[in-house]
Structure formats: structure tokens, C-alpha cells
């Protein structure tokens, strides 16, 4: 039988019923093997005696005098023989599934000594998701802001899982403190002084009833005495912090204190919480957010979503990876003033977000390095429409739109200290309009499978791209042209050829294409199997800017594609371009026909595309590009 990994430690001073109730809940909701040690700190009401006589399945230790929580904890730990300890107050109520996330967290993070669940009030509101320690030596529970996995200044020992080796390494609870208060705060600082970290894991939640075992006058006195001891022991550490008293009058200090352990704080602003399965550039945004996240697990990465679209569903996955997600903010400038001076870097994606959010937010963050991530040059799309439209009024409207967007983009690049584009062509334009900005190219990471199916294992053609449920999007134009002008002549030569239209939120016009020869698949959780089963990816797109991620995904799946010069921009196609790029429907028909009938050429193109993908769009290449962005923002790159 596997020996227990964890010992639960309770220190009691009276409150027999609470201890019994706590242990009952613990036994009921803790399926892993464990030990329990209860230390009675000389309860005057006979609790110790009663526990010693009646408690089964637990070791009861009795102290001869009330030495308090710290001494009780130290005594219990001396009897423990497990890898982990969990300090529990008797007024903690655990529920199903409370422990597993904490153990899983420690198993994956060897640098973390202690992890705490979120403590809830009996009414379910957050009581404490870790706490901050102020320069005045007082602490304040973090019961504000979004919840996410993060390192904390201090987590209460009311419910705290600690590695026994770390606890012993730092000397355990200091004996300098009176009966209660501050000994756990002191422990956290000792752990940090020895290179350990303490985190809060919101996937675990317990209720803390907060029944103190001392009278409030006595509690106040103990707090005062131990506060003195605490400030005496940690003067240098406290000197670096803002005071906790007066935090409500100076709200920005709350965030300073909350995030002060982070090696850097970065704010990323984009349309919505990234939903990579829906296209619209979200996959790339997610990759950029990931790069900032992975550079240092202790860094504060805050994602500001302009729109609340599907935030409730998508944000938890990001929060579980330690990303703070903010949405539903009405006054961005005021929001930033509340966090004045907090961020080291502010990253804004797309020109409309720069105008509406990035610029107003950055005003209260004058210290931050400003990054404009272009994702694409947006003014090029109306320029393309201007070029193809024949209606005078429409052309005028496109011209005005292009002018406005161009100016916004010039302003954004000029505003930025560091800029990121997805292709060298766009970076060249950015460098020209904003010579002061340091412009980088970071496109999109696509991992090539070790083995991709060849010609024989594939059939039919596919169109891949999101539609946003709206008419007249570039993808809608493209699929309509494919269905109306390319597919019919192609089917004359290949009568059995079928087209699958894959992509989230198809518009009514796209849905109307559904027929025996065209299957509108819509959104799929993972497009890869469809891309790996098709013979050709055809997207005759007339409008669009930047690198089209769909083609990078296509390359990674070993799927040759046929598109327009607009679609092929920034893809480093080299010699393969002459087989893949056509300007008119007639050219597209010819290119498709050739690839559908020439397995040797098809295979050569597939190999060529896989090579291009591995060279220019590999995760390693993207990491390298993002490393350069980070270092230009004065942020240390991730360790190799």
C-alpha cells in the first residue's frame, strides 16, 4: 500500500465541536491516504482531554501550556513523516475535490514550497485569494480583482499545503511570536528568503468560517504584540513596500502590492479573450500571450479583452495558466488610473484597440514600454476594396476608410517603442512610417507533425477560414468566388470532386452553399484531421492583410493550397509560388487541376511547404522572434 503523502496539522485551543466537524469533513472529502495530527494547546475547557480520549484515526498531542499556533505546528511537524504538510484551522470546511488541485500543483512546480486554496466566506464570496504584506507590516487579503493561479506574498496557514522539507529547511514557525497571528506571515517570508515560492490555486476552494478562539480584545492585543515582532524581524523586506493602511484611498497601491513579486508585469490589449478555434487572428494573439506567459511563470500577464465575447467560457483556461483576464471595463482610462504605474510593458493589438484603449490606458502607465502588435496592416483591406470596386460612392467610402485606418496605424507605430509585424513586407512599411520604433517580425507558430498523410490517403478539396456570422468578410467573398467561379469548371473535369467548407460561424450566404457537392462543416474543435485528409486547400481571396494563418496551418498539415497573390503574402513560398498562386478564377482552375492530377508535383509541393513551415513558422522560430521582442522590452528571455 502506498504510504500517505500528506499530514494534516490542526492546533486546537478549545472549540472541540469545531475540530470534530473539521475532521469529519476532512475524512469525507479527502480520498488520498493521509495522516492527521491534532495538537491541543492546553485548552482550558477540556478539549485536549476529550480529543485524546475520543479521536480515532488521528494522533493527538497535548501541550502542557498554551504556547499557541506556531509552537503547536512545530511540535506536530516533528512527528510527521510525510512529504507534505497541510496546516488547517478547525473552522475550515473542505469539500469534494479540494485537495487534488493543490497536490497536482506542487507535483508540477518543484520551486514552490507552499500552495493555498482560495478561502471563501460562508456566503460563497471570496475571503482571501492570498494576501499582500504592506510596508507597515500589516496584511490585507486579496479579495479584489480576477482570480487566477499566481504567486502570492502570503497565504494564510488557515489552510496551507507545504513541503515538509521546505518547512524544516527554513526553521519552521519562529518561536519569537506570541500565541497567534503573524507566525505564518513570517514563515512565508522565510520561505522566500530561502528561494521558495508560495502560490494560490483557485481550482481549490474551501470555506473559512472565521471563528477565532481568542476574545477580540485578546486577539487585538496579540496582533499588536506580534506585529511589533514581525516588523522588527523583517525591516529591509518591509522597507520596499507601500503601506497597507490607506490602501482604499490609494487604490493603485493594491495592485503594486499584489504584483510586486512578479519579475515583470505586462498588459496585453486585444478585441476579445482569444478563441483560437474561431480564427480572426485569435490563434496568433494566443501564441503571443503564451510567449509572454512562458518567459517567466512568476511574471504578471494581464489580458485586457475589449469585448466580453465568450469571456466567461474562455477565460478560465487562461486563468488556470496564471493569466489575469480582464473584461467588461467601461472606462479604460479610469481602469488604468486605478493601476497607475503598474505595468512594465503595454502591448496593443490592432489599430482600433490602440485608439480606443491602448493610448488611453498607456497614459496612466508612463513607465511602460509601449508595444504595438500589428497582426496585419488593416488599411490595406479597404485599399484592396477600393481597387476592385466599380461603384463611385463605394470607392469613395473605401478610400475614406483606408485613410482613417492608415493614419491610425501610423499613429500606433509612431507611439510604440517596439512594434511587431507578421511579415517582412509589413515590417518594412512600419519602419518607413515610424523610424524611431524598433520593429520585429513574429508571425505564428505551427508545429509540423512527424508524419503527414501523402497523396494516396487524401481526397477532395477544402476551404478553411472563419466567417464571424457576418456578410462581406474576406473569407465569405473568397468562398463565394470558389463556389461560383472555380468549382463548377473544376467539377467539369473532376465530376466527383467535393468541397468541404470548414470554419467557425458561417454566414447565411455560406450556409446557403450547402449542397451535394459542397458540405458546410462549420466549426470543428481541431481542423487538423480535415486538413490532413484533403488533397487541396483552395482560397481565392481578394481581400486581406498580413500572413493568413490558415495557410500556415495548411502547410503544417502537409496540404498544398491554391490562392491569390493577396493570400500568398508573407508565406516565403519561393519556387512553390508558381504552382500555388493565381490571379483569376481561370488560373485557379488550372492550378487546381494540375495538382489534382499530378501526384509527383503534388508530393514535391507538399515537401516544399513542410520545409518552408519548418523554417519560417516553427514554434522554435516564433520563440526566437518573441525572445527578441521581449529583450527589446527589457524583459529577460526564458531560460533555454
Amino acid at each position, binding site marked *: 500500500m502506498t504510504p500517505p*503523502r500528506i499530514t494534516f496539522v490542526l492546533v486546537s485551543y478549545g472549540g472541540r465541536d469545531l475540530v470534530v466537524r473539521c475532521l469529519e469533513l476532512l475524512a469525507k472529502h479527502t480520498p488520498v491516504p493521509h495522516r492527521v495530527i491534532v495538537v491541543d494547546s492546553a485548552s482550558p475547557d477540556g478539549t485536549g482531554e476529550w480529543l485524546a480520549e475520543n479521536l480515532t484515526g488521528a494522533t493527538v498531542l497535548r501541550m502542557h501550556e498554551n504556547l499557541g499556533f506556531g509552537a503547536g505546528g512545530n511540535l506536530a511537524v516533528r512527528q510527521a513523516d510525510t*512529504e507534505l504538510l497541510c496546516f488547517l484551522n478547525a473552522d475550515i470546511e473542505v469539500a469534494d475535490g479540494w485537495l487534488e488541485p493543490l497536490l497536482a500543483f506542487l507535483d508540477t512546480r518543484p520551486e514552490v514550497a507552499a500552495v493555498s486554496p482560495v478561502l471563501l466566506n460562508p456566503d460563497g464570496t471570496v475571503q482571501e485569494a492570498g494576501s499582500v504584506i504592506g510596508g507597515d507590516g500589516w496584511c490585507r487579503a486579496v479579495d479584489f480583482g480576477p482570480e487566477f493561479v499566481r504567486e502570492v506574498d502570503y497565504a494564510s496557514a488557515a489552510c496551507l499545503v507545504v513541503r515538509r522539507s521546505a518547512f524544516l529547511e527554513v*526553521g519552521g514557525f519562529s518561536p519569537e511570536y506570541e500565541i497567534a497571528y503573524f507566525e505564518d506571515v513570517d514563515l512565508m517570508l522565510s520561505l522566500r528568503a530561502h528561494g521558495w515560492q508560495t502560490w494560490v490555486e483557485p481550482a481549490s476552494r474551501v470555506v473559512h468560517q472565521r471563528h477565532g478562539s481568542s476574545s477580540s480584545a485578546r486577539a487585538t492585543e496579540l496582533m499588536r504584540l506580534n506585529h511589533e515582532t514581525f516588523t522588527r524581524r523583517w525591516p529591509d523586506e518591509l522597507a520596499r513596500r507601500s503601506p497597507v493602511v490607506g490602501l482604499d484611498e490609494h487604490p493603485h497601491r493594491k495592485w503594486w502590492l499584489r504584483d510586486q513579486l512578479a519579475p515583470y508585469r505586462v498588459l496585453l490589449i486585444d478585441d476579445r479573450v482569444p478563441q483560437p478555434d474561431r480564427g480572426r487572428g485569435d490563434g496568433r494573439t494566443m501564441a503571443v500571450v503564451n510567449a509572454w506567459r512562458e518567459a517567466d511563470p512568476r511574471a504578471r500577464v494581464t489580458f485586457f479583452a475589449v469585448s466580453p465575447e465568450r469571456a466567461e467560457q474562455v477565460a478560465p483556461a487562461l486563468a488556470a495558466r496564471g493569466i489575469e483576464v480582464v473584461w467588461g471595463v467601461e472606462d479604460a482610462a479610469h481602469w488604468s488610473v486605478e493601476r497607475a504605474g503598474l505595468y512594465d510593458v503595454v502591448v496593443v493589438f490592432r489599430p482600433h484597440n490602440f485608439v480606443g484603449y491602448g493610448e488611453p490606458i498607456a497614459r496612466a502607465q508612463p513607465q511602460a514600454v509601449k508595444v504595438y502588435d500589428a497582426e496585419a496592416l488593416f488599411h490595406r483591406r479597404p485599399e484592396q476594396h477600393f481597387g476592385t470596386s466599380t461603384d463611385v460612392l463605394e470607392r469613395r467610402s473605401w478610400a475614406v476608410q483606408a485613410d482613417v485606418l492608415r493614419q491610425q496605424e501610423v499613429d500606433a507605430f509612431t507611439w510604440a517603442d517596439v512594434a511587431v509585424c507578421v511579415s517582412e513586407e509589413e515590417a518594412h512599411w512600419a519602419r518607413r512610417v515610424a523610424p524611431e520604433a524598433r520593429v520585429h517580425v513574429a508571425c505564428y507558430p505551427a508545429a509540423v507533425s512527424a508524419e503527414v498523410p501523402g497523396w494516396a490517403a487524401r481526397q477532395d478539396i477544402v476551404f478553411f477560414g472563419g466567417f464571424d456570422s457576418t456578410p462581406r468578410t474576406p473569407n465569405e467573398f473568397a468562398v463565394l468566388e470558389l463556389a461560383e467561379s472555380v468549382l463548377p469548371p473544376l467539377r467539369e473535369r473532376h465530376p466527383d470532386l467535393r468541397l468541404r467548407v470548414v470554419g467557425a460561424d458561417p454566414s447565411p450566404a455560406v450556409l446557403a452553399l450547402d449542397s451535394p457537392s459542397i458540405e458546410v462543416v462549420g466549426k470543428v474543435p481541431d481542423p487538423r484531421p480535415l486538413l490532413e485528409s484533403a488533397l487541396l486547400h483552395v482560397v481565392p481571396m481578394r481581400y486581406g492583410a498580413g500572413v493568413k494563418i490558415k495557410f500556415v496551418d495548411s502547410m503544417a498539415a502537409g496540404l498544398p493550397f491554391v490562392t491569390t497573390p493577396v493570400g500568398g503574402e508573407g508565406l516565403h513560398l519561393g519556387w512553390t509560388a508558381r504552382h500555388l498562386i493565381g490571379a483569376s478564377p481561370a488560373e485557379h482552375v488550372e492550378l487546381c487541376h494540375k495538382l489534382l492530377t499530378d501526384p509527383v508535383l503534388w508530393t514535391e509541393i507538399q515537401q516544399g511547404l513542410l520545409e518552408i513551415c519548418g523554417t519560417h513558422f516553427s514554434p522554435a522560430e516564433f520563440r526566437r522572434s518573441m525572445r527578441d521582442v521581449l529583450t527589446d*522590452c527589457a524583459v*529577460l528571455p526564458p*531560460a533555454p
Partner: protein
Amino acid sequence: MPGLSTHSGVGAVAIWTSADQPDLGDQLTARVIQQELLARLPGWRMSLFATDGWRRPAVADGGLVIEPLRDRAPAELAATATMTVVCTTDPYALDLATRLDVTHPVVAFGEVPTELTNRAALTVTGPNPGLLLDRVIDRETLPVRVAQLRQLSEMPVRGYDVTAELPENLVFEDRLAILSGARSVVTEDEHVAAACAWLGVDCRRPDGSAFEFAPVADLKAELDRIAELAEHTLAERGGDLTTRMSVLTEENHALRQAHWQLRRRMLEERQRLAEPLGQAWRERDDAVAEATVKRTENEALTRHNEELAARLAHVEQELANWRNTKLVRWTRPLRDAYGKARG
């Protein structure tokens, strides 16, 4: 309990110990070798093994995660590490060590059977690792532990001598704390004596003779050799040291870039701060100068005012005196009557 770690890191050293046993020597050797090798091979994974490992939990192990050797095949164990350091005298572990593939480098630490010495790439016999506790325990925590033990009445408040073996169910740190607080220690255990030497506590054998240890520099040199062997092995196995060098060079370059940007940023911020500060200083100096002028003017005006006040007082006094003369007082009714008559 998580399974055997296969995370590659840079390289991995398996340290076969007797840390599932309670004696100070069992605990101390494992910890010292782990920390000293880690200091020489940063980024490497250092895993502790013992015959029963975590299957035999003990208070004395202090919560160390020790993988069990029992029921594991030599091939499996060799596959998880670049090199194995054997520092245990447990027969099961020693037998297992001799069955490791001959291509897998083994370092024998301490007294081991000839069979193992013969197949070991390196054999280290001295000095006792207890002399090298600097990376294992923070000296400053020992007085805290002493205070705790005294608070819990588990240690005498006044001076004491350690003349018997310490109880088995004490954690490693408590044992050191007890030794550190002692006036003198009498023991036959060489590990206890080595720890006392590190602590600076007088320690002798029961017959009164002192322990003698080789210079600690010898042990450091041996550990350097073990680390070199580990790096060599890694290079031979994966040939990955060159790659690593280029990765480190690249990282070094990136770090320099980030550092340079940070300095630049600091300079910019300093200048941005200094600009308004300079303006504020100039305004302050101007204000001070202006205030000085005003103060001088004010003083002059005050003086002038005082003079005028004094003159006024003098004139008023003169007037009052004049009004008090008999001529003025006595002629007043006459002058009043004259005034009325004139209308």
C-alpha cells in the same frame, strides 16, 4: 506519488543513498552530495534514490522525496540518469549498482565492495561529507530551532553535553540544532563528528581522542571530478554540450540585450524624471530669489512703516500736548461760539 521523473533538463544524476534510514550519516551524505553536485551542474536533475525510498517514510527524512530502488530494473534506472553516484552501503543497492550496464558511469562514494569499485568510473573515499554542510543548512536557522526545541521542552535551557546517541525519530535539522547548542559532544559516529567540526562544536571519541579529517578541499576536488565526469558523459552520450554551448551563447546574448535595454530604459526614465525635476528646481530657485527680494522689500517697508509710525506717534503726542495747553483748552468755548456765529 509521481512516477520516476524523465524530465531531461540538461542532464541527470541519480544519487543512490540510504536516506530512507534515520541516522545522521544517512541523511547528511545524501543532502551534501545532492546540493554540491547541483552547485557544480546547474540545471541538472539530481534525484535521490534509496532501497525503499518513499515507501518507507520516516520522520528523520525531513520530507525529502526519495525514489525507491526496490523492484526497479537496472536498465530502467540507468535510462533515467546520465550518471549514478552510489553512496550507500545497503547490500540491495550495492548489488543493483553492480548490475547496471557497464556503459553507464557509476561513481562509488565511501566504502563499497571491490566488485563495485572495479566497475566504478570514479571512487571517492574521503573526507566525510559532513564537513561540507554550507549548502545544506542555513546556519541562521539553527538558533531558531534551538529556541523551538527549548520552547517545547525538548532541550535543556542551559548548557548541556551530548554523550549518548540522539533519538532516531529526530529530523535532520533538529539533530544539527541539538549538536550546535551543545558544549561538547562525545560520539563514535564519524558523521556526527564531521557535523560538529562544521558547527565548531568540540567533539571527541568516548576514549577522549579527537577526530581527524582530511582537508575539506580534497572533497571539493573529488566533487569537481564527479561533475566533470557527468559533463563528459553527457557530451559523449548525446554530444549535446556543443549545442548547449550555442544555446547558452544565444541566451547570453539575449540577456545582454535585455540588460542593455533595461539600462537604456532606466536612463530614459531618469531623464524623463530629471526634466520636470530640473524645471521644478529652477522654479524653486526663482521662487526663493523672488522671496528673498520680497523679504528684503518687506523688511524695508516694515522699517519705513515703523519710522512713519514712530513719527506719527510723535506728531500725535505733540498734538495731544498742544491740545492740553491752557491756551487751547480755555479758548475752546470762545472758538465754539465764534464757529456757531459764523454759521
